[in-house]
């Protein structure tokens, strides 16, 4: 309960102003495609040079929290996931926005972000020493199996056809092999300089999600009668909160999945949202509504990606190992103030660390408050006529993919993937499994090669990958997940999730 003593530092005028500024600024930065949480925090580091350690960290913590949540805005309204964390948010969120329920989607997204985020920070406050030991137990073979577990959900993610889902996943896995192999330095499928660093995840996200819909809007724009005039009904906050209480299951799944996955260095933020989305779909009686603008998926995804924020700081604060690119930037922010993270950080710098953590707790609540304030007017974007919308999204897509590495090559990659995806969508493929393949490919591949080298110096691959409690638990999960998909898709024919209400199918 020691942390309670340090709330005073958060509400000190200067610190609180930074917290407010960081939160509002972070929401705006997060909502801008291409500006990921990592970049937002890196941009702020030079400003912290002139502040005290506590103030600097309050600013960085506030920006981290709110950029993660802010990414939901462009994901929902424009179907441009600002960062991998928001992919799953775009799936149902954008469908809701298209129906005119953008304000509701934003309300739910910020509320569930807040719930997940607060629980995640509480875990950080109370369980850090225990969690730090867990982090060390997750080793190369385990991360490999976790990535394989992710691969098993590809087929069922946001696809009307299981086989087409798997095929899109394979395309994604293949795309992920492009570029220099980072360890050996071997060239793979590099035909143009722009591809030498591989396909960047942010240009890929923007291209795969935003460009097909721009092309769709342009196609529809040629036929006047197809331009939809949307009414955006007013959304009461109390109604949104009532609605959220209907999705306690999705909220709990999201928070639990997000907190656990957030702990795993190098994997966390990228897949937490997608895994939570998939799990909550599998456990939902209204499974077939997912992907059509069902709030449950949105709630799971958003609670997961903010629940991840707290636990992702555990390895950073206690072991001095940054678990994510954003945490690496935060480490820089700590070092420059002569604060060396380690298991004794809470004894050596209680003032700084507790104020930092407390400010993130308060920041979560401010983030919900400001997020909801901007929700109602931001949702009006959906009323923009299709031609303006298409042009606007295209501009943001080019801007976002360029700004990642100030590289025109990334813009070309973004456009090429976008046009390819537009054609694939016409044949019933979808972007989400493809992106999941793109994310998981390197994680599985690198941990496999690394595991094989380690195994070769020890007792061989069989012992290394297939024995040990954690390996066996993960392998069982993989088998269960494959069996589930097989049962659902192969042995239960005649189920057409897309057709009609079909509630009698859901058991």
């Amino acid at each position, binding site marked *: 309960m020691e942390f309670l003593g340090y709330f005073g530092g958060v509400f000190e005028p200067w610190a609180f102003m930074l917290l407010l500024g960081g939160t509002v600024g972070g929401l705006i930065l997060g909502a801008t495609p291409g500006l990921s949480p*990592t*970049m937002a*925090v*890196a941009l702020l*580091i*030079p400003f912290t*040079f002139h502040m005290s350690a506590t103030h600097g960290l309050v600013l960085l913590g506030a920006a981290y929290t709110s950029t993660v949540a802010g990414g939901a805005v462009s994901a929902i309204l424009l179907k441009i996931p600002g960062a991998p964390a928001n992919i799953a948010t775009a799936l149902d969120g954008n469908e809701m926005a298209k129906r005119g329920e953008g304000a509701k989607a934003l309300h739910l997204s910020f509320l569930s972000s807040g719930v997940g985020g607060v629980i995640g920070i509480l875990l950080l406050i109370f369980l850090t020493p225990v969690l730090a030991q867990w*982090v*060390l*137990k997750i*080793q*190369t073979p385990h991360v490999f199996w976790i990535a394989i577990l992710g691969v098993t959900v590809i087929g069922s993610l946001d696809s009307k056809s299981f086989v087409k889902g798997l095929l899109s996943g394979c395309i994604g896995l293949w795309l992920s092999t492009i*570029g*220099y192999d*980072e*360890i*050996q*330095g*071997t*060239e793979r499928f590099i035909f143009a*300089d722009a591809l*030498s*660093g*591989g396909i*960047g995840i942010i240009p890929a996200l923007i291209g795969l999600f935003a460009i097909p819909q721009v092309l769709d809007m342009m196609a529809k724009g040629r036929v006047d009668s197809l331009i939809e005039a949307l009414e955006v009904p007013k959304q009461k906050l109390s109604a949104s909160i009532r609605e959220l209480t209907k999705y306690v299951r999705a909220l709990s799944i999201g928070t639990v999945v997000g907190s656990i996955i957030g702990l795993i*260095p*190098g994997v966390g933020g990228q897949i937490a949202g997608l895994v939570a989305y998939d799990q909550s779909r599998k456990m939902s009686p209204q499974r077939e509504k997912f992907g059509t603008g069902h709030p449950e998926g949105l709630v799971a995804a958003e609670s997961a990606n903010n629940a991840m924020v707290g636990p992702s700081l555990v*390895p950073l604060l206690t*072991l*001095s*190992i*940054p678990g994510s*690119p*954003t945490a*690496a*930037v*935060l480490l*820089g922010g700590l*070092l*420059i*103030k*002569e604060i*060396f*993270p*380690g*298991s*004794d*950080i809470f004894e050596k710098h209680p003032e700084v660390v507790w104020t930092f953590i407390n400010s993130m707790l308060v920041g979560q609540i401010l983030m919900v408050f400001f997020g909801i304030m901007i929700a109602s007017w931001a949702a009006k974007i959906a009323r923009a006529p299709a031609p303006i919308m298409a042009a606007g999204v295209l501009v943001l897509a080019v801007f976002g993919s360029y700004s990642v*590495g*100030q*590289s025109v090559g990334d813009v070309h990659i973004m456009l090429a993937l976008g046009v390819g995806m537009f054609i694939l969508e016409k044949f019933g493929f979808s972007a989400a499994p493809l992106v999941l393949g793109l994310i998981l490919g*390197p994680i599985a591949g*690198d*941990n496999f090669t*690394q595991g094989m*080298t*380690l195994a*070769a*110096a*020890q007792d061989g691959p069989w012992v290394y990958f297939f024995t040990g409690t954690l390996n066996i638990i993960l392998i069982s999960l993989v088998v269960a997940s494959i069996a589930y998909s097989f049962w659902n898709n192969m042995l239960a024919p005649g189920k057409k999730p897309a057709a009609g209400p079909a509630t009698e199918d859901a058991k």
Partner: protein
Amino acid sequence: MKRLFKTAILAAATLAVAATGSFAADYPDRPIGVAVSYGAGGATDFQARIVTMVAGNADILGQPIYILNKPGAGGRKGWNWFATEAPADGYTMSAYNIPHFIAQSIKGGVKYSADSFEPIANWGSDPAVVVVGKDSKFNSMQDLIDYAKANPGKTTTSGAGLFVGHHIAALQIEKACACKLAYIPTKGGGAAAMKAVIGGEVLAGINNLSDAFRAREAGNVKILGVADLERNDFISDVPTLKEAGLDVDNSSVNFRGLMVPKGTPQAVIDKLAKQVPLMFAHERVAKRMKAGGSPMKIMNREEVQKMWADREVVLKDLLKGL
């Protein structure tokens, strides 16, 4: 008419000369970009942001420096871009990491070599150190080498990748002790390699001195040796590998500094070579670097040119047959 034409050409030529002259005199008249071949938040990015923070002072360059991150493929993407596409006008510099880019160019498959770039100055040197977990049975380099000799190829040793300082140090140790380690290049850089050591996934690790220093302060690792010519002020109790009886020099030390593409006007190079070391030596820079546990080593253009040439010879020999 003909004469008029001639005069015009002459005038244009004079103008062009005047423009070049004034170009160098006015340089720099707008902000300068520094490309970093690693992501935001990495050690190179972090240090580059600190050492360039006083560039805007009138007595340094009079123009601010901003950082451009071009990460990918262990630095290859950024340096490929810098060697082939970056304008050679002095407004785009790049951070270099030695031995990385020289080792990569020896290995091949990239569009640069040491001849593609002109060094300006060096700001930092981060030696590789040998670390083991805090509960490890190894307490000295001797313990580790004895084990490696008894169990060839079983001494799992993590490092940040292939053809980086950590890898070079591992190769040098193997050569010096005539024994075989099992070098494990981890994806995710030094941080992932350090986690493998702390978590007991590997028996030993080779890592940056700055990161190992922090990990030791936090009580997570023991540092057995430094791959440098002299002991380091941050960890003066740790012997060099040479003291520990291994013939390992400073070839694996990770040097960081600034460079420009070949073809940059000599006047610009001269101006940068004169001013940039002053920028690195600024007291505010030194204070921040020390606070962050980042060892500094300022070298001027001539010293860096020599260091690059020396490194190339050693690395060519070491990487032969790999």
